[in-house]
């Protein structure tokens, strides 16, 4: 037992968690990139001298879980602590070090207390544009995708590296927003450093060691206990996904041992020629998030709780993409890895794991046409985010039109129409799109939009589940597949690629439904009646799929 009372250690732990949340808020409020403010697509954390993560903000997307932890270790290998000065800040956007694609910038600042380094604060945020082919799967290697900045010193004793900033701006279509976002990251690091030093002063700490040991040991033990409740074994699963040029097979083997869990992607398809490949750090983030939703969700993310989850994959498979393959849209498949991991885990814990869901975001990056820019037409760029249904849960229906695993916020029609020349004419739940089952999958949605002017616009698609629906679990049925058309009579389009939407013609998008859980005939007639009455299911589905016996039979 250390000299510091346990409840005092706990108070300090709570304070660290508050500090990282504060860091996160500081970053989100000052951010320019829409995905950051709408989705909290950021990460903020505090590390000890050994590079162990002690606390991480719970933010909107799981894509950064532990990616930052590895990045900080890498930066510490590269830059010696002895040479660090107060006010130094280090930076990189290397996808294989930071967070899987060039848009994510990672900063790290040493924290000084009593004239020596005691720990680090770090944060990651999504920048709007890094040049190249931009956010889309069309690049054929990382060099096509824009500017890569290797680990470097961005701020030297409080002085920003002006030339570096000029380079970032000169290589972007959104130079002012990029500059604003980098300053937001700097402010986030500084907030964390100031608060951490202030806390050590308040609690009379000279170093973080006793606190770090307490946090890591407590979390490690708690996670170990949680893992002990999972039946030991080796579990396999396979998930077929749309891919770009051809369908892709994702494979996983989950090994539950006494003292850790491994997930291995052996058997997974090779990389694509397009930018949908996933560096392992990002695939790890999403699959570990999914596992931790079931195993020890109440234990905060830190080096102690995360070290018991190990993710591996053969080099060169699409979930362990190697340089220099393109990775800009790594989230399309990254967001499918929870369903892959759940395919394994549901064998071990059949009563705790939900069915497959739409999972991949239906984000619709809209842009003006090249000729609009050339001929003085309306220019705009807007990324709209929509979701399908989540998988049915072990004891309740899935959530309709709700983000999972990502935590993004959808947009509102009235604010969308204020900032871009589009008119949205429909956004409603998709009847019968939730997979049938004892518990029904969440519904997808119908979205229709057209140009609000007489000009065409472009859409850059990279979505999933157009070919392969969300499967049900334990006898539950699959949800409806996604569907994309231009015009109501247009032909069905593939899930990835560029679309031109002519003026006066609607873009028609139907997002996928979630899978059902358990046999449909076990669904209570009361739930069937309610779904029918509220138009969640059609009469045809009620009578056919659900064996509806008419109102009044409430069993």
């Amino acid at each position, binding site marked *: 037992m250390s000299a510091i009372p*346990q*409840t005092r250690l706990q108070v300090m732990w*709570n304070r660290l968690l508050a500090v990282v949340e504060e860091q996160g808020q500081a970053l989100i409020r000052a951010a*320019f990139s829409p995905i950051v*403010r709408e989705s909290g697509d950021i990460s903020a954390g505090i590390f000890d001298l050994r590079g162990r993560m002690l606390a991480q903000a719970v933010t909107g997307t799981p894509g950064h879980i532990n990616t930052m932890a590895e990045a900080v270790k890498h930066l510490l290998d590269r830059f010696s602590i002895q040479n660090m000065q107060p006010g130094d800040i280090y930076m990189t956007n290397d996808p294989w070090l930071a967070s899987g694609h060039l848009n994510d910038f990672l900063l790290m600042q040493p924290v000084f207390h009593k004239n020596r380094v005691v720990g680090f604060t770090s944060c990651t945020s999504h920048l709007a544009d890094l040049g190249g082919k931009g956010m889309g799967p069309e690049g054929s290697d990382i060099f096509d995708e824009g500017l890569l900045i290797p680990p470097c010193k961005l701020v030297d004793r409080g002085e920003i590296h002006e030339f570096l900033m000029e380079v970032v701006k000169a290589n972007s279509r959104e130079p002012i927003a990029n*500059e*604003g976002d980098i300053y937001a990251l700097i402010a986030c690091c500084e907030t964390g450093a100031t608060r951490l030093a202030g806390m050590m002063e308040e609690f009379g700490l000279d170093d973080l060691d006793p606190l770090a040991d307490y946090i890591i040991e407590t979390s490690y033990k708690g996670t170990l206990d949680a893992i002990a409740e999972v039946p030991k074994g080796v579990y396999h699963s396979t998930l077929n996904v749309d891919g770009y040029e051809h369908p892709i097979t994702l494979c996983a083997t989950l090994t539950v041992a006494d003292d850790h869990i491994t997930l291995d992607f052996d058997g997974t398809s090779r990389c694509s020629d397009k930018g949908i490949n996933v560096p392992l750090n990002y695939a790890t983030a999403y699959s570990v998030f999914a596992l931790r939703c079931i195993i020890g969700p109440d234990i905060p993310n830190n080096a102690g709780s995360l070290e018991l989850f190990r993710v591996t994959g053969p080099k060169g498979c699409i979930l362990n993409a190697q340089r220099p393959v393109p990775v800009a849209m790594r989230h399309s498949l990254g967001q499918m890895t929870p369903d892959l991991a759940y395919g394994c885990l549901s064998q071990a814990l059949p009563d705790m794991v939900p069915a497959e869901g739409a999972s991949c975001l239906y984000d619709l990056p809209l842009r003006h046409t090249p000729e609009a820019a050339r001929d003085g037409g309306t220019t705009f760029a807007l990324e709209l985010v929509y979701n399908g249904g989540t998988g049915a849960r072990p004891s309740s229906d899935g959530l309709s039109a709700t*983000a999972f695993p990502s935590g993004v916020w959808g947009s509102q029609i009235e604010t969308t129409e204020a900032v871009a020349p589009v008119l949205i004419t429909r956004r409603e739940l998709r009847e019968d799109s939730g997979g049938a089952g004892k518990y029904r999958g969440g519904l997808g949605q119908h979205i229709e939009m057209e140009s609000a002017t007489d000009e065409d616009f472009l859409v850059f698609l990279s979505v999933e589940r157009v070919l392969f629906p969300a499967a049900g679990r334990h006898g539950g049925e699959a949800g409806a597949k996604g569907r994309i058309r231009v015009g109501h009579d247009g032909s069905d389009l593939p899930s990835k690629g560029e679309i031109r939407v002519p003026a006066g013609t609607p873009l028609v998008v139907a997002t996928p439904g979630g899978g059902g859980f358990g046999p449909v005939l076990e669904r209570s007639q009361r739930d069937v009646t309610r779904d029918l009455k509220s138009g969640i299911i059609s009469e045809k589905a009620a009578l056919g799929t659900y064996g509806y016996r008419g109102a009044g039979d409430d069993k």
Partner: protein
Amino acid sequence: MTDFSGLRVAVDIGGTFTDTVLVNDDGTVLATTKTPTTPENPTNGALEGVEHVLQVSDADWSGISGFIHGTTLATNALIERQGAKVAAITTEGFRDILEIGYERRYSQYDINLQKPDLIVPRELCFTIGGRMDVHGHQRADLDEAALPALVSALQRSGAGAVAICLMHSYANPSHELRLRDSLQKALPELSISLSHEVSPEAREFDRLCTTIANAYIQPLMARYLSEFQERFSAVGLTCPILMMTAGGGMTTVETAAALPIRLVESGPAGGAILAAHIAQRAQAGSVLSFDMGGTTAKLCLIDNYQPQSARKFEIARAERFIKGSGMPVRIPVLEMIEIGAGGGSIASVDRLGRVQVGPLSAGSEPGPAAFDKGGTEPTVTDADVLQGLIEPASFAEGRLTIKPDLASIAVGQAVGGPLSLSAVEAAAGISEIVDENMAGAGRMHAVESGKDLGARTMIAFGGNGPLHATRVARRAGVRRILIPRDPGVGSAVGFLFAPVSFEIVRSRYARLDSLDVSDISRFFDTMTEEAEAVVRAGAPVGELNYTRTAFMRYHGQGHEIEITLPDRSLEAGDIETLRLAFEAEYSRQFSRSVPGMEIEILNWSVQVASRTSEADAIAKTTAQGSAKPDRSHDILCEVSGERRKASIYDRGNLGPGQYIEGPALIVEPQTTTYVSADFTAAIDGDGNIILERLEGQS
């Protein structure tokens, strides 16, 4: 009977008690009373309270020239789901605004979470053709041919109230108005709420939710208010009744009956108004109000004697203290954060061996273990008892017997045992955790508002505020605390300092560079006229204050910053002034501005308020030396971690200018002020206790 005139009375009907305050024309409190709330008919309790204060003051109904009423009835109806059956009508193609919302889970790791119940089920969501665009131009006319079918569907549904929320109605309400006229004609009994009247802001989900909440309580509140008014005039009240709103102002009964959603959360607003008034008398320009009761603690930032305002809050959260788990309501409100931390909050140890406090509360029944009313779980109050911070003999004027041994058993078993700590050590841990929770929530709230806590004066009240103030302040970096007189009563007194006011926030999207100032001026004129009419109904004479605000942001950002506009029509030259004002405020909040980035404006607001007199500063006192303790008591000092003797003072015996060194306890009937070892206490000219942290304490 004394000849009183110019009396003013305030009645605050809470869940348990109805507080009534009577003041004379110079604001001196003549009488206060706490009577049990009468849920079956709350007017009964209110009548009883007012009759009581009149009687003890020897005054008469005819002497009352001002009557202010606040009630939790609207809030409770929403929480307890006792409102009308509501149907919603939205634009064709958008039946599922409610179901879809922001497409978001409020708790990232909770696979099994349930979304909040938003009152209107899908089968009561109807649509009608017709479409306005963002500029308020009609893209398609209202589909009147569909009206008969809609009317019969509404009839079949049995809905007693309807919320109408059509796309972009804040920019052009004509379709909502035509739809209302047609429905009212066909269904005269139907209560109708229009979104552009209830909450004229862009963001269809929030506006619809607000309109539904209004429609839900409208029939109930209209009935209640009309009966309340009739009963009071029947016994002789001649002046108009004014209702307290969530925005911290008063409005007429007529406005309240049409927009009852504005009455929600008016009680806590009264507390913040009182704190702002005290702040002005104490000349404290930068304040954190801290109201800690039995179940929750509420914090509010008050700058320049104005409580911080917001345009949105949440009701009926599925997870009580989790943001995003409730129903959004977008109206002007005083912004307060509520934390599940009060005297009754229950402490436990989780499976990681971490002490957790709240949000579950033992409430007043069964209450803390030390109350010996059947409670066996350890609470924050039990922890305070074990540390000696509550003197058993003087608690609640001795009406309640405090049993420290019961507190010791409860804390020892549930917290001490699992952590191998003695009951007293565990009690200290419980306090540390709950105080850190409150300080942490306060810090976070300040960050989210672009503000800092450090330089603030804390004004602490509520039954547990004065007891925890020094401990929370230390953790929040606050060095100065003010404990007002009668800290257990608050909201009702606060009502008496509120102006008659009305605020309208309305969306109109504009880029600052291309702002059409004459168009915006006309837009403001209309809003001002509407707000003025509401205020004049309650304050027919006297000068009015006008505050115009623009909600601005850099293009592409999600967070808007409030910029106060000049109280006149805008001119072309103002655009540059506005840019500078925005950049200055942005720099203040984020350390730097972003030159070259386009600025956009989403919402505009006008607040019209009757002018209230400024509070005079408290008279200076001369130092009277140290106060003489009445007795002493053993406490566990959280600064040194050791047992110490604390002097005990009865607050009633303390006079202006007297001075006390910590550790000490200042006791009064409703609460105890704990002066920690690193604080000193002094009594100011108003009888407030001023606690100051000693220099040299970090």
